[in-house]
Every structure is written in C-alpha cells, then in structure tokens.
C-alpha cells in the first residue's frame, strides 16, 4: 500500500496528492509517470509525476477529476492509502541546453510540464513558460513557475486573468516579435498540442508533446497505448510518453481516447449516485486511515450527468 502524506486542492476538481513511494521517488526523472490502482476492484490509470523528493521518499501527482477513478482519487485525504502505485514509467524528458526553450502548459498539463521546465532551466536554457487555462480559477502552479521560468506569459480563454486568448496566440506573438526559439515543449489537451504543432511545424522548431493514451500495464505488455508516429505505431508507455509533435497523429489519439467513453460515463454516474461500494472496499482493506472519504461535492454529481 502507498500512503498519502498530503492532499490539497489546487483548483476546482484538481487535487495534489503527495504519496509515500520511496523506490519511485529515488529514480523518478522529469517526464515520467506512474500507474495507479486505487482499490481492489479499481482500474489502472497513468498519471504523470509532478514532483519527487527522493530523501523523504515522496512523489507528487496532480489529478483532475474527469472520470470515476480520478474523482475517487480527489476524495482521498492524508492518511488514506492507494493500493498500487508503480513506476517511474516511460522515458525521461530529453534534456540538454537547447538555447531558448518555450514550455507550454495547458490546464492540468501544466503540472506535467512544470518539472521538465525546471530541469530545462537547470540544463542552462532560457525558459519562457506559457501558462494557459480556461479561467483564473483553473490556473495551476503560477507561483512555482514564476520562481523557475525566465519569463512567464499567462493566457486565459475568458480573459479573467493574464491575456485573453489561447496559448498558441502567445506563441505566435513571440515568433512575430522575432523571438528566437530552439525548443518547444507543449503539454495539455490534445487540440492544444495539435495547434502548437501546427504553429511550429512550418518553422521547423523542434516541438515535444506528452501523450496521455489509454494504458493498462504501462510496461509494453498490452499494446493498448499505441499511438501513430510518422505513419508507424509506437507504444506511449515504453517509447514515450514524449514524442516529436510534428510526427504525432493527434486525430488517432483523440479517437482512441474516446474508446470507452460510454462505459466511463456510466461508471462515473454509478459512483456519484452511490460511492458506498468503493468506500466499503477501501475501508475493508484498511486504506482509509482518515476515516470515511470526503463528501462528494454537488458539482461532481453534475459532471456525471
């Protein structure tokens, strides 16, 4: 079992969990992920490692509630435990002094991009971070990024904070102003990553994206996470999760990620209607150190409908 040592809310439906997983913390490198199974009947889902403390044996994941498993994760508190956490999986981010690196984080993708941005800075790059979210409330890690990046540009879809517009608008503006860019890392929703690739492709600026395909084991065994790269198939778990954005078939990724949508929606609806079976399972296994789970917020119920 993997105890949760800290849990806090970063934004609506987005929680940060710090987990005691000493083996993983010791070996983790930016860009890698873990596979998590919450309880005995749970599914296995991949989540990127946002930070690690090898001395304490802690890793941090940032979870947005989008389906049953992530919703359940968001209800856990310090003192509770996850049944299984395995990792670090995937290849670490490619790390060198490229010159000027633009790191683009969209929504919860920011949490994935942040550790790599930090490493890029340590490798000697001039780091420009473009941080995007739907609105001010959903903006993640602004202070942490400000402390690391040489420049920070904040974009919100509704203009509630920073500049109104998309992250690609900020990227285009940098290019229009004649900013020399040697390396781009973009992590966020698939349409965002696709749009960034569209901006940098004609200019042949090396652009890296991190792909969140559906996985089971994460060790190359199931082949479920196959993604289209330059007309060929690769496995996101062992060949990725980071790939050259200009070679990625984003439409295929979108399609494959939709595969179980109906089942996911019904599973989420069942859970919000009656979370007791899951609570009972975790209690019986001694996973609920902090007593029962957090009450399910009413907003989550509406997500499920």
């Amino acid at each position, binding site marked *: 079992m993997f105890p949760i040592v800290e849990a806090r809310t970063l934004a609506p439906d987005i929680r940060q969990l710090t987990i005691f997983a000493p083996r993983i913390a010791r070996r983790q490198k930016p860009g890698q992920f873990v596979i998590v199974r919450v309880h005995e*009947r749970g599914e*296995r889902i991949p989540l990127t490692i946002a930070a690690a403390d090898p001395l304490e044996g802690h890793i941090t994941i940032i979870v947005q509630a989008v389906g049953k498993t992530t919703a359940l994760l968001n209800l856990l508190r310090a003192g509770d435990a996850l049944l299984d956490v395995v990792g670090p999986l995937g290849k670490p981010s490619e790390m060198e002094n490229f010159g000027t690196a633009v790191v683009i984080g969209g929504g919860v993708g920011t949490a994935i991009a942040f550790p790599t941005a930090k490493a890029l800075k340590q490798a000697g790059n001039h780091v420009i971070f473009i941080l995007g979210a739907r609105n001010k409330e959903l903006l993640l890690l602004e202070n942490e990024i400000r402390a690391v990046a040489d420049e920070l540009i904040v974009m919100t879809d509704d203009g509630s904070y920073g500049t109104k517009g998309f992250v690609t608008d900020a990227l285009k503006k940098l290019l229009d102003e004649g900013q020399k860019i040697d390396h781009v890392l973009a992590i966020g929703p698939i349409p965002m990553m696709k749009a960034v690739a569209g901006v940098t492709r004609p200019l042949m600026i090396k652009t890296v994206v991190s792909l969140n395909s559906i996985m*089971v084991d994460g*060790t190359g065994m199931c082949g479920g996470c196959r993604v289209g790269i330059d007309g060929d198939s690769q496995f996101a778990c062992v060949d990725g999760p980071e790939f050259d954005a200009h070679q990625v078939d984003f439409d295929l990724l979108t399609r494959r990620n939709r595969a179980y949508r109906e089942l996911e929606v019904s599973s989420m609806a069942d859970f919000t209607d009656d979370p007791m079976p899951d609570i009972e399972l975790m209690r019986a296994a001694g996973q609920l150190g902090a007593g029962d789970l957090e009450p399910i917020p009413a907003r989550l119920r509406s997500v499920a409908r």
Partner: protein
Amino acid sequence: MSQKPLPDHNPLPMKERMKLDRQRMPERPPEERAKCFQEVNLGFGEDLAKQESLRCLSCQKPTCVTACPVSVKVKDFIDLILAGDYLGAAAKIREDNVLPGVTGRVCPQEDQCEGGCTVGKKKEPVGIGYLERFVADWEQRSGVIGLPERAPATGKKVAIIGSGPAGLSCAGDLIQRGHQVRVFEALHDLGGVLAYGIPEFRLPRSIVKQEIENMKKMGVEFETDCVVGRTVTIDELFHDEGYSAVFVATGAGLPQFMKIPGENLNGVYSANEFLTRVNLMRAYRFPEYDEPVYNCKDQDVAVIGGGNTAMDAARVSLRLGAKNVYLIYRRSEKEMPARIEEVHHAKDEGIQILALNNPVAYLGEERVTAVRVQKQELGEPDASGRRRPIPIPGSEYEIPVSVVIIAVGTTANPLVQATTPGLQTNKKNYIVADPETLRTSREGVFAGGDIVTGAATVILAMGAGRKAAASIHDWLTTGVWKPGNGQPAAPLAATAD
C-alpha cells in the same frame, strides 16, 4: 518386460494393463460452459484416477520422466496413487515441480510426459496430466500441503525478476537450498502469464493463488508493483540491496501486430490487452470492477492467430456473449500450434475456425466494422517446418466484425536489457544465455524462459527456472563464474536464434 517383478500396488499383469482404455476427462457441457468462466475440465474423482493409474506399465526406464522438462517422477507418483496415498503422490511431484495444480491443467502433456509414455505406442498414453491434476487438487482440498524441506540458511540473497512460471519455479528450488529469495513483479498481482494470460476456465485463479501462498509459506518473499529496469535496476539490486545473484525471467510480453491498415481502429485489441483486461482486471464484471472492455454481447468477433492464446481469446469473447467468433488462421488447421484439446474445446463451444485465411485490412471509421480477409493455399515448408501460406490473388472478402483480437505472437520485453549495461542480447533483443547454465554476459546475472527462448510453454519456462536454480546455487556456493558444460567461457554466442 513381463519377467520383471511387479510393483506392490498394481495388481494387474502387464497384458491386462494394456487392455485398459484411457479414462475420459469429465467436462462441463459445451452449451453450459460457453456462457460462464467456470472450469471446462472437471477433474478425475478417486475412482477414475485409480482406474487410469492401473494402465501404467511401471517401466524400468520411464521415458515419461525423461520427456518432462522438469523430470517429474511420474512412475513413482502414479504408484503412490495406486497405494491410495494421494498426499504422498502430491509431495512426490512437488520435489520437482512447485506448481502441480497449474501444470496438471496447462501443460501440453501430449508432447511431453504422455508423448514419452510406452503405452502410447500401442494405445492412448496414460493420462499423466489428468493424474497430476487429480493429486494436486486432492492435496489442495485436504489443506495439507507437502512442502519440501528447507536447507539451513546460507545468508545469500537472490533476486528473481518476474513471477511467472520460470520465476516461481526458480524461487521454489532456491528456497529449498537455503537461499533468501525475493521475487519482483511489475503488475499488482502475482503469477505473470498465469494471472493475466490464461483464462479462468482453463486455470482458475484460486489454483495460482494457492500455489503462491504455498511458496510464501516456504519463505519466498514477493514484491509487486516493481518494474525492474524502471523502478530499480539490476546494478542497484547488486550494489544497494545486497543481492548476490539475479535471475531474469521477464518473459516475451511485447505484443506483435501485423502492420496492416486499420490496426489502430477502436475495437482492435492485442490478445495481451484483451486477456489482461478480462483475466487480470476482471473487466467481464464491469461495472462491479472498474476496468472497461468492449462489450462483446451479440457482437461478431474476429481472433487472428492459431496458437493457445488465440484459442483463449476466442473462447473468452464467446463467454462475454459474442454472437459469432471467427478464428482466422493463415495455414490449415493441421499446422495450428494450439493444443489439440484446446482446439476441440473451442470448436465444441462454437468457435468458427476459418483456416487458410489471412487478414489484410481492418475497415471502419472510428470503431472497426469489418475485417478484409484473403484466402491462402499451402506451399512448401518454411523455416518453421510448416507449409508456407501463399495468398490467392483476387480471393479477398469482408467479414463484418466489431471486435478484433490479434494473437500472432509476442517479442522480448526491453526494459531490463535497456538499463543493464553489458547484458548481451541478440538482434531480436532476447537475452543471450548459455543454454546449459543460463549464465548471461554479466557476472551473477542469469536469464531463462521466454526472455531467452521466445514465447514457449509454461512447463518449458519452469524447466528453465529449475536449471537456473541449480546454476545459481552452484555460483553462490563456489563463487566461480565458470563456463558451462563444454561451452567456451567467453564470449557467449552472439545470437541465440
């Protein structure tokens, strides 16, 4: 032969024994079992087991034993069955085989022990596999497990990577020799292919769990959720964690695809993914269990391949409610690598075998809606010794399907090799190991099972595990990294294939 004194427990003269026919395995009726995950073979009762045991000729030189990859003392355990000492029979098997409940179910006995049986030259061979299963089940029901003795502790630690049949078998032998053994498993559950690959109706999970519990009682330690090569490296196991030897038994887990159009459509699974979702993650009990799998109910399913894994995938989809299950295989049924018993079981249940057919494309917009198939004819034998399939031009046709499962083989999992400097691999990325000693190019590192040989059977992997255990024991007691039997010390052959 008849001049020899008869063993105590078999009252029949040789001639009489040869007159007896092989006892049939009781099976769950096809129409019933095609709808449930309960075991197909029901097992022998005491009467059937005794009756079948009477057929054994008690050969002076038992060829059944030499035909077994782990040399189970077949003649001795059958003799104990005749004596009514079923627990003694089980303990006798355990001396050589830590997983009798497993091998009694999934071994290709017809090619191994039973293939070597003398009775088989004139009649059907003795049902050794059925008898092995009978005593293993008897022992399990009794709750009295004849665990082998442990030698005094040596204080040496051995790390075993992978809890599949090779790893478990090696662990069982090493713990008996007094070493401290820890098995590392990447998944959350133990058993490797026994847990994720072989379905419940052929090998109940309770059997695997019980065998692993027995090993825990013998002192073997297990660590799940640990991917050696990622979570910890072999170098760290040696230098930071004090292991003296490592046995790599990671298997050949990487699924192969055919690289034909439409393979990435939704609904096209590798057999590994499909079976893992259903067997390991229990997706067939969704939404009680969270892992999803495409609903096969009233759907048409195509399974590509002709091995045991293809049979398993086909029969699982049938149990998930599929209307039609087509097993598409490019050679003729005669060349199918699957066990004959499994092919029969599949056919009885209603699997439709389309031999001499090969998929050339999958069609559909988002989800697969059809497979385009090309008919084949057989030419001359190829490197595998089987007649080569040759496409018949203009013979393409389409079969409507909404789920496709690809079971055309696997290759080496690369994670350990990628993070172990100096570990020699061949051009297909399998680990190179001395065939006698299973030593690799790295001192203290041994490898065996599918990661060395490519995909094979449970019992061959177990044989490799035993061989590795003997070799590791030799290394731990002598400290000499000596060459194998008649093999040059170094370098090892560049390729094993």
